[in-house]
Every structure is written in C-alpha cells, then in structure tokens.
C-alpha cells in the first residue's frame, strides 16, 4: 500500500547551512528513525538498514539509498530508498523530496514530501497503522533534523511502544504529546 505525506516547517538557520545538512547522506539518514548507513557504494548510492517495530509487527529492511537529485542552485533534493525485508517477508520503497526556500536571511522554510509503498507482511497485518506510523516517523525526522541543525543531541532509534501508544491516544482523544 502507498501513503504520501508532506511536511512544511521553518528553521532559524541560513539556507546554505540547511542545504548542506539535508544533502549530506550520513547526516540526513541519521535523522531517519531506525535508519543507518552501512556502506557507500559511490557518490550517489549507499547501502543501509531500517528497523521498524510497532505492536507485534517488526520489520527490518536492508536497502539501497540513491540520491536522485541534488540541485544546489534550486535547493531541491530527492532520494529513493529501496528496501527488502531482512527475513524475506516484504519490501518497501520510499521516495523523498526536499525543497528549501529562504524566507529571510537566517530563516529557511523546509518542505519535505515522502511517498512510501509497503508490500508484504507489514502491509498484510498493519495496513491501518502505516499512514499513522509514517506520519510519526516523519515527525520524528523533522525533530531530529531540527536538533541536528541546532547542534543538539538526538536519539534516532525508533521508539516503537511509545509511538504505537501515542497513536492510540491520538485515536481516542488522548494527548498525543
């Protein structure tokens, strides 16, 4: 199943600084919860892993991440991630695009969109959760990215229990935070 998410947020950092972080493979991937780069294949291709867990469903993906666009003048980037479940139980594809706009010097607007397609066990058993989980993952990514720019510490492990818990609270009117 496919889900698409868009996020727009502002950071109080100059556009060039934001751009260099957004297009640095190790920095950007480190902001994705559960993701890790394990090997650089060439300038645009990297190998990595992503671990996801929510409720009883766990998935680990071994994948290839490719930067398909890094246009420094237009401040547009795009990357594609292709992952195969490490137990052969499914696969995932992610296309992410990021655009930067300088609102004022030192204030940058970041637009991020993600299309995620999941096939296999995660889709079979967790389809109703995928949009919510993806949303949570992107929220966590945004927070991590902001922390990275601010030079703060952040935790890129995916906290599965709390994520599922916060979704349940959200569904039933509890406090999401």
């Amino acid at each position: 199943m496919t889900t698409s998410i868009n996020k727009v947020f502002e950071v109080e950092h100059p556009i060039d600084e934001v751009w260099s972080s957004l297009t640095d493979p190790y920095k950007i991937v480190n902001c994705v919860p559960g993701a890790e780069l394990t090997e650089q294949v060439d300038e645009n291709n990297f190998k990595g892993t992503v671990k996801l867990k929510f409720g009883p469903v766990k998935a680990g993906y071994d994948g290839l991440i490719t930067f398909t666009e890094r246009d420094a003048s237009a401040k547009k980037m795009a990357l594609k991630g292709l992952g195969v479940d490490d137990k052969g139980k499914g696969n995932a594809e992610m296309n992410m695009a990021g655009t930067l706009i300088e609102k004022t010097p030192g204030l940058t607007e970041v637009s991020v969109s993600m299309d995620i397609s999941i096939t296999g066990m995660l889709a079979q058993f967790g389809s109703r959760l995928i949009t919510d989980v993806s949303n949570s993952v992107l929220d966590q990514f945004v927070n991590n990215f902001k922390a990275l720019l601010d030079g703060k510490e952040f935790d890129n492990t995916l906290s599965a229990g709390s994520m599922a818990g916060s979704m349940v609270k959200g569904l039933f009117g509890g406090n999401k935070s």
Partner: protein
Amino acid sequence: MPVQQCRAWNRLPPNPSLFNINNYQITIMIQCKTSKEISGMGHSMKRKEDGRFLQGKGNYIDDLKLPGMLYMDIVRSPYAYAKIKNIDIEAALKVPGVAAVVTGKDLEKYGLHWMPTLMSDTQMVLPTDTVMYQAQEVAAVIATSRYAARDGREAVRVEYEVMKPVIDAHKALDPDAPVLRTDKPGKKDNHIWHWEAGDKEKTDKVFAEADVVVKEHMHIPRIHVSSIETCGCVADYHKVDNHLTMHMTTQAPHAIRTVIALVAGHVGLTEEKVRVISPDIGGGFGGKVPVYPGYVIAIAVSFLVGKPVKWIEDRSENLQADSFARDYHITAEMAGTKDGKILATRFKVLADHGYTDASANPSKYPVGMFSICTGSYDYQTTYMEADAVYTNKPPGGVAYRCSFRVTEAVHAIERITDRFAFEIKKDPAELRMQNFIKKEDFPWHSPTGWIYDSGDYHAGLQKAMDVVDYYGLRKLQVQKRKEGKLMGIGISTFTEVVGAGPSKDFDILGIKMFDSAEIRVHPTGKAIARFGTKSQGQGHETTYAQIIAEVLGIPAENIQVEEGDTDTAPYGLGTYASRSTPTAGAAAAVAARKLVDKARKIAAYLLEVSEEDLDWEPGKFTVKGAPEKVKTIQEIVFAAYTNHPQGMQAGFEATHYYDPPNLTFPSGAYICVVEIDKETGAIDIKRFVAIDDCGHIINPMIVQGQVHGGLTQGLAPAMYEELLYDEAGNILNGTLMDYLVPTAIESPSWETGHVVTPSPHHPIGAKGVGESPTVGAPPAIANAIVDALSPYGITHMEIPITPFKIWKALHDRGVV
C-alpha cells in the same frame, strides 16, 4: 485507499417510540401430525447436539491428539506475484523440534505439487518457481510441537523476484496485462470461460423498443465465510497396512475420499485404503468444501514419514488464503413499460476468480445458478453473459451460504427492480405485486430453463407489508422527509434455487449430486441413521431424526443420527447450497417409507389380517374396524428380529439414494427500514421483517435460528464485509480487527415469519432454508438505504454501504 470501518460505528441507540418492533417471532400455525413424544415435523424440538456443544464437549479437529503426532505450519508468500529465487531452510532445520521443511520441489518428486480444483482447473499445492497471490503456501515446516513449527516457519528465508501483479479484474483482459497462467501451454490471456443464457437477439429487440430502460453497475464484493473454526486436519497414514485416515474439516467427506484416491492413487492410496472422518465442524458456509493445499501437504508428509500430521490454520491464514466468495462485477439492465410491467432484463458479469477457478459449482454450470437472475417476476425475455478472469488474488468462488451464485443474481435483479420503480416513480411494493408470477402459474418455466416448483409470492409480500405496516411507514417517511430526515424502506422479494440436484444436470467432478440415508432400527425399536451429508452446525442430528420420526413414528429422541465417517455412512455429496434437507432429508423420508412397507407386512402377520385391513398412523398399525387391535412400531421391529414371517428377510433396515426430480425453489419477502444520520452517514436499521417460504417446516425453532444467522450473514456484505486489496495485491484487512464480521452488537432485531407452499415433488414438501436469508437480505438493506437517499438523486450504492460512502455521496451532492 478504501476507508476501513470500526466496529459499532453504525449503531445508533434504538429509538423504539417511532417504530413498532415485534421483538418476537411472528407466530405461524403448524399442524403437527405426530405427538410431542414422537416429535415429528413441526415440533420445535430442542437440538439433540446442543448438549455436547453447550458443555464444551464437542469433538472438533483441533481436539484430536494422536500418539507421535507431528505439527505442520506453512510459510506463505508476502507478495502477490513473484518468482522464487531461493528457499533457504538451513536456519529453520536448526530450530529445536523442527523435523523437516517441505517445498514444492520435494512434492514434485512424487507428482504431488499440483492438484485439480473442483472446477477441473489446476492449482499448486506448493510452488516450484512462482507465487501467484499473497498468502499462498510456499513451504511447510514439520515439527514436534506447534510452537516449534511456528518458530521454524519464521526461520525459513525465501528470496523473491517481485513482478507486477494483475489485481483489478477489469484490467485482467487488457492487451498489456501479463499472462498469469503460463503453466497452461498456449495460454495467451487471463480469460477463463464465457457463459451465456437466454435469448440475446430477442432481448436486444425488446430493449430497443421499450419505453423505459434502466441500468446500473454493481459489484458484489469479495467476502469471506469467516467460520468460527478455521480449517485443519490430522492426516494419519499407517505404513504397516498402507491405510490413511484423514480427519478433516470438510463439508463433503465422501467426495474428498474420492478426490484423494484420484490424486494419490498412483502412490498406493486407492479408495479402499482411505477413510475420511469429518468431526464436529464449527461452521462451514461453503468454505470447507474445497481442498486446500494444507490438507494435501499434511497427507504427503504423513505418507512419507508414517506419523500423524496435524495442520490447523490461524485466523489470518484462514481469512487471507482460503477460498473467498462472490466478487462479481455485474451490469444489470431492465426494460419495461411506463406503467410498471417488466418486459426484459439483461445482465453482464465479470467474475474475478483469483489465481485459479476453484469455485464450488456443479460441473455444467461455471456461473452456478446465476441464471435464476430473472427473479420472481413474470416475463420471458432475458439474456445474460458472464466471463471469468484470473487475477493475482487468492483463488475461490465458494458458494458462501448460497446455492452457487444465487446471492449475486438476487442482488442484481432486486436492485434493478427498485431502480426501475424509482425511474417510473412507482411504489416498489406495488411494482413487485404487479409483476409477480401468480400462484396458479406454478410450475413456472423461467426464460433460462428453470422450472420453479411452487410459490405464493403475493401472499409472502402481503404478509411482510402487513407485519411492517408498509403504508404507515410510507406516511411516516413523507413526514420525516419534510423534517429533513433520511428514512428508507427497502424490499427484496427473491426466489432461491436449491437442493442440487437432479443427476441429469448436476455433478461435481463427474459425481452425481444425489444424497443418501441409511436407517437401521435395533430390536428394541431405537434407531441409528447415517447420511452422506455433514452438519456444520445446522442441526442435522435433530432434523433428520424428526423426518424419520414423522414417517416411522419412532420418537426422534430415539433416533441417533451419524454423519461424516466414510467408512460407515452411505455415499453422498455433502452439505452445502441448502441441499441437505432437499436431498438427504428426502432420502431419509423415502427410506423410512420402505420400512413402513415392511412394517405393514409384519403387522399383518402378527395380527393375522391382510395388509389391506390395516390402518397406519405414525407409530402404529390398527385393524380397520377393530381399533383395539394394535401393533406399535416398536413391537413390529422387535418381531423383525424375533418372530419375522417365513420368507421375509430378518432385520429392519433401509437405505435410499435420492436423486431429486427437480430443484426446490424457496422464496422470501424481506422488508428493511432504515434511518440515516445525515451528518455522519451512520445507518440504523429500525425494522427488518423476513417472511420466508421454505415449504413444510421440520423444526420451527431451528428454522428461526437458521434465518437469524443467515440474515446476519446477509447484513455482513450489505454494510460491513469486503476483502480489500491494494494495487500491489496486499490485503488491507487481513485480520478480524479490520475485516468486520457483524456480531450481536451490529445486528438489528430480526422479525421472522413464514408462508408455506410445499414443494410438490419433494417427499415431505420441504424446500430448504439455510441460505435464503443470506441471499435475500443484502438487496433489502441496500434498497432501503438507496430509498433513504433517493431525494438527492442517488440511484445506487455499492455494497458494503458504509457511513463514509453515504457521507461522501451526500457531500458530493452538496447536501452536507
């Protein structure tokens, strides 16, 4: 992505002040010929089987534990369409307790990697190179415990090369669609079969000249039987005497034994070496008719290792992999006059069969009895055609509580009839009354060749209208509409076709669809009766006993009914499609009559009179003019073993194989009343009146239970159930969290009643009732909802009709 539902969204708190609900069965007067002690037909005898069920003492497949038994679990495909590059079993074999992992390549050595389907198509048992649907069996893990088998399953690593699947049936015949069944030499497309009935030329002419023509596209969604008990088996092969006992959740044990012998005869499992035992079954509904790969793998493994092998599906495997039902895309058209006379109908069907045609239809009828789609109406011009296609979805097409595609046919005719009434602004009840086949016109020849045995459609609908206060409700509807409220009344007046079937037309894999009964009465006058059918909760142990009691006068309490063991029961085609009462029930009546004939001879001998001088009433013979001279059936039976006339065979037994002369045609008139919350789309069923005509009733209590269960399973596709797939072939509701089977929470108060027109050709005038409510309920509900929405120009809603669909339809029209 389709929007999923949550349980209990749809139920508003009832507001009985507006609607006068009869929370009890509408009483019917049944004249019983026998006393309560005998409890023949018409008595609401308590179910004999319920003692053990209610005390948790049933004997289901998973209760069976044999010494040395191994357990099997199945590795399933995560993809809808993929090549298998490698199956790595090394890690699985290291899991403590795992004994073996079986793949398609292993079965291929014995020629057991393919099997036939009931429709003579072919199906993989385990794949050797390609998987064709998500959740397809890929390998089997055998272990000493269920837990070890599951752990072993998790450790099997399969490498796939994913291919683009065909999911949408409408795109299956596109020129650029990949050809799925490359295993079939020369197959160049995904087309399975084409079927037609009726007269195309005549129909097209009537349509071209008709004043009024209406047309709707409708999808009868892919649904699942979701019986409480999943499928499973214990295959128990004994090498020493080359004998297989197959304990198995099957609705048709005898047919399964024959199929096993046909498939595995070449490895020595000939039919006398195979015994199939079908124990208590927790619901079948058609889903336990097919042979699933798990059964075959279990047999193969037991055969190879010489130990019993148990396989029990989990809930999601059952929902995701076992045969689905329905999935017909139908274009329905009706032509008529401005004053409401139906002149002709035309139907075009696209049937999505998934990976293989594993329908459970009689061989001659790939589209089942869909051609009953002309319904309860008096017209002679129709044409229908159907095409079936392969897609990358689980195979199936089972007759889910439905006589082979009758549900699809009834939805089409009952929806399009309402559409016609709406078009000419005529009351749908009056339009039906105008067009019904008249009581005196039976037996009635339908334009597609069926001979309806009997019916009184006017009486049925009139009774339903009286019970529900139809015209009162129509007045209330006018008032509610003035207040801006949405209220709808929907009618379904359906004709069913059940009891397959006459041997000249009906067979499955060549075996004719008769059924059988064998009655043995013991010297003390108590009996055991065995049948070729198999109850899955229908109450055969009670109803069959009552049929025999009705004819023979032995109390039903003293008649033990046994089914499901091929070593002891006479051959029969099993229980599905409401066929048990029409076939095996008839066989019981005829066998019992043979015994009455024998009893007469013995009574004449004992009373020293001629046979003509005897009067029979169930349970005893009396001498004409001398009522004090009596011989009870018990005395006569005792004499059959102790003092039988010379020249007569001793004993008191009879067997009959009943080949029905025609099918039976139950009918029903259902009226549903709904209120819909405009802002949320929530649907509240205020009334549901179901008047059934199933001919003579054997046990009114059991019939009422059948109708209640069937109506709830009719509510299911109308408002809740549909197996959803995304474009990659992922199931989106593969657990009961997401696939909503309605429960008591969702069910309205069903009001049930009857009219009785006995089947003239059936020995006891019964017609069968098991599936009528499942067949008749969906269009009544859909018609009620569409009626509620009709002021906004809405003429059709696809089932399941969810609050979201309603809200969206109203929102799109600017209503909310």
